[in-house]
C-alpha cells in the first residue's frame, strides 16, 4: 500500500510548502520518505527564540497508519542542538505518546506533530533531561518506535 502513503505525503508536502504556523519551517523533503523541519520556541526563557531545533521525520510505507519516526538532530553546521526537556533524551529521542502506537492516530500529520512538540517545549519549566538519560543514551540500540515509554508524567 505504498501508493496511499506517497499520495498522502505529497498532499501534506504541498500544504506545508504553502503555509505553516509561525516558528515551524520545512528544511528539506528531497526524499519523500525523510523530511527535516526546523522549530523555534517562542516565549520560553529556557529556549532562545533565535535558536531553531532540527527535527527529522522518517516515514514507513505504512504511514499514516503507523506513526512516523520523529527525532531531534544535533548538527555542527548550521549548529543545531537537541532541546533540553524532561521528555527528550540527549540523543534526540522523544518520549511523547503521540508518536507511539497507542497514542498515534492516522489523522495526525507532520504539521500537527510539530505543533504538539512546539507547545510541549513552550510550556516546559524544567531545564533537565529525563531520569536515566546517560544510561539510556549509552545503551539504547532500539528504534524509537520499539521502545515502550511509560507516559507517567502528563504534566510536562
Amino acid at each position, binding site marked *: *500500500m505504498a501508493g*496511499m502513503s506517497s*499520495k*498522502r505525503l505529497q*498532499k*501534506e508536502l504541498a500544504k506545508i510548502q504553502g503555509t505553516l504556523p509561525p516558528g515551524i519551517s520545512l528544511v528539506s523533503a528531497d526524499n519523500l520518505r525523510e523530511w527535516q523541519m526546523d522549530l523555534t520556541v517562542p516565549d520560553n526563557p529556557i529556549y532562545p527564540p533565535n535558536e531553531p531545533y532540527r527535527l527529522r521525520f522518517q516515514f514507513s510505507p*505504512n504511514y*499514516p*497508519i*503507523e506513526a512516523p519516526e520523529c527525532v531531534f538532530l544535533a548538527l555542527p553546521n548550521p549548529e543545531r542542538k537537541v532541546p533540553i526537556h524532561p521528555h527528550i533524551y540527549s540523543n534526540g529521542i522523544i518520549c511523547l505518546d503521540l508518536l507511539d*502506537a497507542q497514542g498515534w*492516530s*492516522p*489523522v*495526525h500529520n507532520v504539521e500537527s506533530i510539530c505543533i504538539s512538540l512546539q507547545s510541549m517545549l513552550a510550556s516546559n519549566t524544567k531545564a533537565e533531561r529525563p531520569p536515566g538519560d546517560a544510561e539510556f543514551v549509552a545503551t539504547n540500540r532500539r528504534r524509537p518506535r520499539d521502545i515502550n515509554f511509560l507516559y507517567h508524567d502528563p504534566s510536562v
Partner: protein
Amino acid sequence: MDSDDEGGFNSAASSIELDEEMSSSVDFDSDVELDDYQEDETAFEATAKDLAPRRKAYEVEYRVYSPKDIQAQQDDQVAEVANLLEQPPEATAILLRHVRWNKERLIEQYMDAQEELLDKAGLGQDISKNPPRLQVIDGFCCDICCEDTPGLESFAMNCGHRFCVDCYRQYLVQKIKGEGEAARIKCPGDGCNKIIDAKSLDLLVPTELTERYNELLMRTYVDDKENLKWCPAPNCVYAVECGVKKRDLNKIVPSVHCDCKHAFCFGCTLADHQPCPCVLVKKWLKKCEDDSETANWISANTKECPKCHSTIEKNGGCNHMTCRKCKNEFCWMCMGVWSEHGTSWYNCNRFEEKSGSDARDAQAKSRQSLERYLHYYNRYANHEQSAKLDKDIFHKTEKKMTLLQSSSGMSWIEVQFLEAASQALQQCRQTLKWTYAFAYYLARNNQTAIFEDNQKDLEMAVENLSEMFEKSTDQLAGLKVEMMDKTTYCMRRRVILLDDTAKNLKEQTWEFIVDMV
C-alpha cells in the same frame, strides 16, 4: 464505675473478636462443604485421572477447556447478558470486556449510570438502530489518504469519524496483525475512544483476519478472568479453570494437569512444585539463581572477616590480613586479632588463644548457614538431574517395551507396567525435588521430623524403583510383579507425603523460617 466500664469494654471487644472468628470459620467451613460437594460430583473423573482413589487434601478442583469450549463459554455469557441488558451481542461483548467479564458489576453499573458506562466502554447508545454499513458520500475527502475521488466508499462508527474503506481496513489490519490488538481497537480518529465492534470488523476486514481477531479476543478473555489460565506448555492450546484464589496460595498448592499431559501450578504457572507453596518456590529459585555455584566456591575458598563478616579470598602473601571494608587486622590462620601476633608473619603459633577461638566460633556459625543451604540445594539439584536422566530412560523404555513384546511373547497391554513405572518415577522425583526447597524454609520441630521421615521413605522407594530400570530386558519380564508393586508403593508414599504437607498447609500449622510474603 471504672472497673465496670472496663469490664464492659473488654467483653464487648472480645465478643467482636469472637464474631470475627466465628464468621471466618463459617466461611472456611462453607468452602470445605463446597469442596466436598464438588468432590462427590467429579470423584469418578478424578479416579480415572490419578492413581489416587479419592480427591486428597493436595488435589484441587479444576477443568481443562479446549479453544472451542472457551469460545462457547464466552458466547453463552454474552448471550445471557445481552438478553438482560437488551443490547446487541456485539455491544454486550464490548461491555463485558470493559468490566473484565464481571457480570454482576456490569449489570450494576448499567443500571446505575447507563450512559456513562456506555461512553467509558467506548460504545454509543444507538448501535442497534444503525447497523454498520459502507456509504458513498458526495464531496467526501478521507483525512488519512487525502483521497477524494467521487464514489469513494467510506465507513464511520457512530462517532462520525469517517474514513475511506481502504484506510479503515489497513488501520485494522495493522492493529490486529502488527500490534496484536483486539479487544480495544479504537476509532482511527484523533482522541476518539469508540471501540470497534465485531460486526463492523466483519464488514471491513478479510475473513482470515477475523479468525486472528477472534483468537486474540479469546486470549484476552482467558487473560481477563482470574479463574482461567492458559496451559504454559509450548504449543498447547488448552486453558484450565480453577477456583483457587491468589490469597489462598499460602494454604494450598493448586497443581493441575492439562490434557496435553503437562502438570503445572495454577498459582504461578510454573511446572508442578508440590508440596512447596508458590512464595517459597519463588524465594528458592531466586536464592538458587544468586547462590548456587558461587556458594560452593565461597564455601571452599574464602573466609569471613571476623569483625564485619565480609567474604575474603586470600590470593597470596602473608597471614597478616587487613579487611578492605572495616580495616580490621587479623591473622588468616587463627582468625584472631593481629596485634597479639608480633612479627611472626608467615607462621601462626597462637592457635589456642581466646580471641582466635572466639572468632572461629563465629565464623563456623555463619558457615553453617551456608552449609545448610548447600545441603538442601545439592539434594534439590540431584533430583532435578535424576529426573532428566529418568526421562532418557523413559524414551528407552518405549524401546524396551517393544523388545519385551517380541522376546517374551507378552502382549502390548502386558508391558504397560514399564510405562507406568517410568511415569511414577518422573512424578515422584518432581515432588522430591521440591520437598528439599520446602524443607530448607521449615523451622525445626516435631512436624519437621515427620516430614523428613516421609521424605526419606519416598526417596528410598524412588531409588529402589529407579534401580530396577537398569536391569536388562530379558530380566524385566520376570520382574513385572515386583516392579508393579514398587510403582504402587512409590505412588502411595508420594500421596502420603503430599497429603500430610497439604493438610498442615491448609491448617497453617507449618512453621517457616521466612515470612510468607
